[in-house]
Protein backbone atom coordinates (compact mmCIF):
# COMPACT_ATOMS: atom_id res chain seq x y z
CA UNK A 1 0.00 0.00 0.00
CA UNK A 2 1.26 3.44 -0.92
CA UNK A 3 2.35 5.50 2.11
CA UNK A 4 0.83 8.59 0.47
CA UNK A 5 -2.56 6.86 0.39
CA UNK A 6 -2.16 5.88 4.05
CA UNK A 7 -1.23 9.47 4.92
CA UNK A 8 -4.35 10.71 3.14
CA UNK A 9 -6.49 8.23 5.07
CA UNK A 10 -5.02 9.32 8.41
CA UNK A 11 -5.60 12.97 7.46
CA UNK A 12 -9.22 12.21 6.58
CA UNK A 13 -9.83 10.35 9.84
CA UNK A 14 -8.19 13.18 11.81
CA UNK A 15 -10.43 15.73 10.08
CA UNK A 16 -13.44 13.65 11.11
CA UNK A 17 -12.37 13.66 14.78
CA UNK A 18 -11.78 17.42 14.61
CA UNK A 19 -15.32 17.93 13.31
CA UNK A 20 -16.64 15.68 16.08
CA UNK A 21 -14.73 17.63 18.71
CA UNK A 22 -15.98 20.98 17.33
CA UNK A 23 -19.55 19.79 17.57
CA UNK A 24 -19.21 18.22 21.00
CA UNK A 25 -16.75 20.49 22.80
CA UNK A 26 -16.61 23.73 20.82
CA UNK A 27 -13.81 25.68 19.17
CA UNK A 28 -11.65 26.49 22.20
CA UNK A 29 -11.44 22.92 23.41
CA UNK A 30 -10.83 21.60 19.87
CA UNK A 31 -8.02 24.06 19.19
CA UNK A 32 -6.46 23.29 22.55
CA UNK A 33 -6.59 19.52 22.07
CA UNK A 34 -5.42 19.24 18.47
CA UNK A 35 -3.03 22.20 18.68
CA UNK A 36 -1.32 20.77 21.73
CA UNK A 37 -1.25 17.29 20.21
CA UNK A 38 0.21 18.39 16.88
CA UNK A 39 2.90 20.58 18.44
CA UNK A 40 3.84 17.80 20.86
CA UNK A 41 3.94 15.17 18.09
CA UNK A 42 6.01 17.35 15.76
CA UNK A 43 8.57 18.32 18.41
CA UNK A 44 8.80 14.74 19.58
CA UNK A 45 9.39 13.25 16.14
CA UNK A 46 11.83 16.01 15.13
CA UNK A 47 13.85 15.35 18.27
CA UNK A 48 13.86 11.58 17.88
CA UNK A 49 14.87 11.54 14.22
CA UNK A 50 17.60 14.17 14.69
CA UNK A 51 19.47 11.94 17.14
CA UNK A 52 22.69 10.24 16.21
CA UNK A 53 21.11 6.86 16.95
CA UNK A 54 17.36 7.27 16.44
CA UNK A 55 15.27 4.36 17.67
CA UNK A 56 13.30 4.42 14.46
CA UNK A 57 13.88 5.92 11.04
CA UNK A 58 11.21 7.25 8.70
CA UNK A 59 10.46 4.83 5.88
CA UNK A 60 9.23 5.34 2.35
CA UNK A 61 7.51 8.67 2.97
CA UNK A 62 9.42 11.23 4.99
CA UNK A 63 9.74 14.99 5.29
CA UNK A 64 12.94 16.25 6.96
CA UNK A 65 13.54 12.67 8.17
CA UNK A 66 10.17 12.67 9.95
CA UNK A 67 7.32 10.38 8.91
CA UNK A 68 4.29 12.73 8.62
CA UNK A 69 1.95 9.79 9.15
CA UNK A 70 3.32 9.49 12.70
CA UNK A 71 2.88 13.22 13.40
CA UNK A 72 -0.78 13.05 12.29
CA UNK A 73 -1.27 9.65 13.92
CA UNK A 74 -0.56 10.83 17.48
CA UNK A 75 -3.48 13.36 17.67
CA UNK A 76 -5.82 10.84 16.04
CA UNK A 77 -4.94 8.19 18.61
CA UNK A 78 -5.01 10.64 21.54
CA UNK A 79 -8.53 11.70 20.59
CA UNK A 80 -9.86 8.18 20.12
CA UNK A 81 -8.23 7.07 23.39
CA UNK A 82 -9.92 9.92 25.28
CA UNK A 83 -13.21 9.10 23.56
CA UNK A 84 -12.94 5.46 24.68
CA UNK A 85 -12.20 6.54 28.26
CA UNK A 86 -15.10 9.02 28.31
CA UNK A 87 -17.57 6.53 26.94
CA UNK A 88 -16.48 3.65 29.17
CA UNK A 89 -16.69 5.82 32.29
CA UNK A 90 -19.74 7.70 30.94
CA UNK A 91 -18.03 11.00 31.72
CA UNK A 92 -18.99 14.43 30.42
CA UNK A 93 -15.86 16.60 30.20
CA UNK A 94 -17.92 19.70 30.98
CA UNK A 95 -18.98 18.32 34.35
CA UNK A 96 -18.41 20.59 37.32
CA UNK A 97 -16.18 18.08 39.06
CA UNK A 98 -14.28 15.64 36.91
CA UNK A 99 -12.49 12.51 38.11
CA UNK A 100 -9.32 13.04 36.20
CA UNK A 101 -7.03 10.15 37.17
CA UNK A 102 -9.36 7.26 36.16
CA UNK A 103 -9.94 9.07 32.87
CA UNK A 104 -6.20 9.44 32.19
CA UNK A 105 -5.46 5.82 33.19
CA UNK A 106 -8.20 4.41 30.98
CA UNK A 107 -7.10 6.63 28.08
CA UNK A 108 -3.57 5.28 28.54
CA UNK A 109 -4.81 1.67 28.35
CA UNK A 110 -6.94 2.50 25.29
CA UNK A 111 -3.89 4.02 23.64
CA UNK A 112 -2.13 0.68 23.82
CA UNK A 113 -5.09 -1.14 22.26
CA UNK A 114 -5.42 1.48 19.51
CA UNK A 115 -1.75 1.74 18.60
CA UNK A 116 -0.84 -1.96 18.51
CA UNK A 117 -2.34 -3.02 15.13
CA UNK A 118 -1.30 0.23 13.43
CA UNK A 119 2.27 -0.15 14.62
CA UNK A 120 2.44 -3.76 13.43
CA UNK A 121 1.20 -2.81 9.98
CA UNK A 122 3.28 0.38 9.68
CA UNK A 123 6.53 -1.32 10.50
CA UNK A 124 5.83 -4.28 8.18
CA UNK A 125 4.90 -2.00 5.27
CA UNK A 126 8.03 0.08 5.80
CA UNK A 127 6.31 3.35 6.81
CA UNK A 128 8.88 3.47 9.62
CA UNK A 129 11.70 1.14 10.61
CA UNK A 130 12.48 0.26 14.22
CA UNK A 131 16.12 0.14 15.23
CA UNK A 132 17.42 -2.41 17.74
CA UNK A 133 19.31 -1.60 20.90
CA UNK A 134 18.33 0.64 23.76
CA UNK A 135 18.44 0.70 27.53
CA UNK A 136 15.32 -1.39 28.04
CA UNK A 137 15.55 -4.02 25.34
CA UNK A 138 12.74 -6.33 26.37
CA UNK A 139 12.57 -8.25 23.14
CA UNK A 140 10.36 -8.04 20.06
CA UNK A 141 6.71 -8.73 19.31
CA UNK A 142 5.42 -8.99 15.72
CA UNK A 143 8.26 -6.78 14.53
CA UNK A 144 8.00 -4.20 17.35
CA UNK A 145 10.34 -3.59 20.29
CA UNK A 146 8.24 -4.63 23.30
CA UNK A 147 9.08 -1.57 25.38
CA UNK A 148 7.26 0.75 22.98
CA UNK A 149 4.00 -0.76 24.22
CA UNK A 150 4.57 0.93 27.58
CA UNK A 151 5.66 4.08 25.77
CA UNK A 152 2.27 4.49 24.06
CA UNK A 153 0.45 4.13 27.37
CA UNK A 154 2.65 6.66 29.13
CA UNK A 155 2.46 9.11 26.25
CA UNK A 156 -1.34 8.81 25.99
CA UNK A 157 -1.86 9.12 29.75
CA UNK A 158 0.46 12.12 30.09
CA UNK A 159 -1.07 13.90 27.12
CA UNK A 160 -4.66 13.41 28.28
CA UNK A 161 -3.65 14.65 31.73
CA UNK A 162 -2.03 17.74 30.20
CA UNK A 163 -5.12 18.46 28.09
CA UNK A 164 -7.57 18.06 30.96
CA UNK A 165 -5.50 20.28 33.26
CA UNK A 166 -5.47 23.04 30.61
CA UNK A 167 -9.11 22.52 29.72
CA UNK A 168 -10.04 23.13 33.36
CA UNK A 169 -7.38 25.81 33.97
CA UNK A 170 -5.91 23.82 36.82
CA UNK A 171 -3.01 25.49 38.72
CA UNK A 172 -0.74 22.51 37.99
CA UNK A 173 -1.22 22.69 34.21
CA UNK A 174 2.07 24.44 33.47
CA UNK A 175 4.05 22.08 35.70
CA UNK A 176 2.57 19.12 33.85
CA UNK A 177 3.24 20.73 30.47
CA UNK A 178 6.90 21.25 31.38
CA UNK A 179 7.08 17.59 32.42
CA UNK A 180 5.50 16.50 29.12
CA UNK A 181 7.88 18.67 27.08
CA UNK A 182 10.83 17.73 29.24
CA UNK A 183 10.21 14.05 28.66
CA UNK A 184 10.89 14.40 24.92
CA UNK A 185 14.67 14.86 25.07
CA UNK A 186 15.03 12.01 27.50
CA UNK A 187 13.01 9.54 25.41
CA UNK A 188 11.30 8.57 28.61
CA UNK A 189 7.95 8.01 26.98
CA UNK A 190 8.76 5.53 24.26
CA UNK A 191 12.33 4.33 24.29
CA UNK A 192 14.22 5.20 27.43
CA UNK A 193 17.88 5.23 26.55
CA UNK A 194 19.35 6.78 29.65
CA UNK A 195 19.09 6.20 33.37
CA UNK A 196 18.56 9.96 33.83
CA UNK A 197 15.43 9.71 31.70
CA UNK A 198 14.12 6.74 33.62
CA UNK A 199 14.80 8.52 36.92
CA UNK A 200 12.92 11.60 35.74
CA UNK A 201 10.00 9.45 34.60
CA UNK A 202 9.82 7.77 38.02
CA UNK A 203 9.95 11.21 39.69
CA UNK A 204 7.12 12.47 37.45
CA UNK A 205 4.86 9.52 38.20
CA UNK A 206 5.51 9.86 41.93
CA UNK A 207 4.86 13.61 41.86
CA UNK A 208 1.67 13.20 39.80
CA UNK A 209 0.31 10.54 42.12
CA UNK A 210 0.98 12.70 45.20
CA UNK A 211 -0.04 16.12 43.96
CA UNK A 212 -2.87 15.68 41.49
CA UNK A 213 -6.33 15.73 43.01
CA UNK A 214 -8.62 12.78 42.54
CA UNK A 215 -11.21 15.11 41.15
CA UNK A 216 -10.79 18.34 39.29
CA UNK A 217 -12.89 21.40 39.99
CA UNK A 218 -13.97 23.25 36.86
CA UNK A 219 -13.04 26.95 37.07
Amino acid at each position, binding site marked *: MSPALALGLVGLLLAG*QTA*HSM*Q*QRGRRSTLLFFGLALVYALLRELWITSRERPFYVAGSLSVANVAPIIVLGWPLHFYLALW*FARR*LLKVDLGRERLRILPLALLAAASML*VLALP*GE*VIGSHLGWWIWQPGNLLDLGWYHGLPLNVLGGWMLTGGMFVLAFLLFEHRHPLRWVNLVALAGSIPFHTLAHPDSWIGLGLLAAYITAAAWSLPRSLAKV
Partner: protein
Amino acid sequence: MDLASLSSRVGDGTAILCTHGPLTIETLSRPNQKAGWDGIPRATLLFLIVFYSTVMVALLRRPEYLVDVLPLALLLALVEWRRRA
Protein backbone atom coordinates in the same frame (compact mmCIF):
# COMPACT_ATOMS: atom_id res chain seq x y z
CA MET B 1 -46.70 21.74 30.98
CA ASP B 2 -42.91 22.18 31.35
CA LEU B 3 -40.48 21.45 28.55
CA ALA B 4 -39.01 18.31 30.09
CA SER B 5 -42.35 16.54 30.41
CA LEU B 6 -43.40 17.75 26.97
CA SER B 7 -40.17 16.41 25.52
CA SER B 8 -40.61 13.02 27.15
CA ARG B 9 -44.14 12.74 25.83
CA VAL B 10 -43.40 13.82 22.28
CA GLY B 11 -39.85 12.51 22.05
CA ASP B 12 -39.19 14.43 18.87
CA GLY B 13 -37.64 17.89 18.62
CA THR B 14 -39.44 18.66 15.36
CA ALA B 15 -42.85 18.34 16.96
CA ILE B 16 -41.78 20.72 19.71
CA LEU B 17 -40.80 23.29 17.08
CA CYS B 18 -44.41 23.74 16.04
CA THR B 19 -45.50 24.73 19.51
CA HIS B 20 -42.50 26.48 21.05
CA GLY B 21 -40.44 28.03 18.24
CA PRO B 22 -36.73 27.98 17.30
CA LEU B 23 -35.34 28.54 20.81
CA THR B 24 -37.02 25.36 22.05
CA ILE B 25 -35.91 23.20 19.14
CA GLU B 26 -32.33 24.33 19.74
CA THR B 27 -32.54 23.28 23.36
CA LEU B 28 -34.29 19.97 22.86
CA SER B 29 -32.70 18.68 19.70
CA ARG B 30 -29.06 19.08 20.78
CA PRO B 31 -28.87 15.79 22.74
CA ASN B 32 -30.14 13.91 19.67
CA GLN B 33 -27.54 15.62 17.48
CA LYS B 34 -24.73 14.73 19.86
CA ALA B 35 -25.77 11.10 20.00
CA GLY B 36 -25.81 10.98 16.21
CA TRP B 37 -22.44 12.67 15.90
CA ASP B 38 -20.79 10.05 18.06
CA GLY B 39 -21.08 8.03 14.88
CA ILE B 40 -17.83 9.62 13.66
CA PRO B 41 -15.47 8.00 16.21
CA ARG B 42 -17.49 4.79 16.06
CA ALA B 43 -17.29 4.68 12.26
CA THR B 44 -13.57 5.53 12.44
CA LEU B 45 -12.92 2.62 14.77
CA LEU B 46 -14.98 0.21 12.67
CA PHE B 47 -13.07 1.34 9.60
CA LEU B 48 -9.73 0.85 11.38
CA ILE B 49 -10.70 -2.67 12.48
CA VAL B 50 -11.70 -3.68 8.94
CA PHE B 51 -8.70 -1.90 7.38
CA TYR B 52 -6.13 -3.45 9.74
CA SER B 53 -7.64 -6.92 9.34
CA THR B 54 -7.71 -6.67 5.55
CA VAL B 55 -4.10 -5.48 5.34
CA MET B 56 -2.88 -8.18 7.72
CA VAL B 57 -4.58 -10.99 5.82
CA ALA B 58 -4.52 -9.83 2.20
CA LEU B 59 -1.38 -7.72 1.99
CA LEU B 60 0.96 -9.05 4.67
CA ARG B 61 -0.42 -12.62 4.48
CA ARG B 62 -0.11 -12.86 8.25
CA PRO B 63 -3.52 -13.95 9.56
CA GLU B 64 -1.90 -14.68 12.93
CA TYR B 65 -1.51 -10.90 13.39
CA LEU B 66 -5.31 -10.61 13.62
CA VAL B 67 -4.83 -11.24 17.33
CA ASP B 68 -3.52 -7.65 17.52
CA VAL B 69 -6.82 -6.25 16.21
CA LEU B 70 -8.94 -8.28 18.58
CA PRO B 71 -8.49 -6.03 21.68
CA LEU B 72 -9.65 -3.03 19.63
CA ALA B 73 -12.78 -4.85 18.51
CA LEU B 74 -13.46 -5.95 22.10
CA LEU B 75 -13.01 -2.40 23.41
CA LEU B 76 -15.46 -1.04 20.84
CA ALA B 77 -17.95 -3.78 21.74
CA LEU B 78 -17.55 -2.83 25.41
CA VAL B 79 -18.31 0.82 24.63
CA GLU B 80 -21.43 -0.21 22.70
CA TRP B 81 -22.53 -2.36 25.63
CA ARG B 82 -21.99 0.55 28.06
CA ARG B 83 -23.94 2.86 25.76
CA ARG B 84 -26.94 0.57 25.68
CA ALA B 85 -26.78 -0.32 29.40
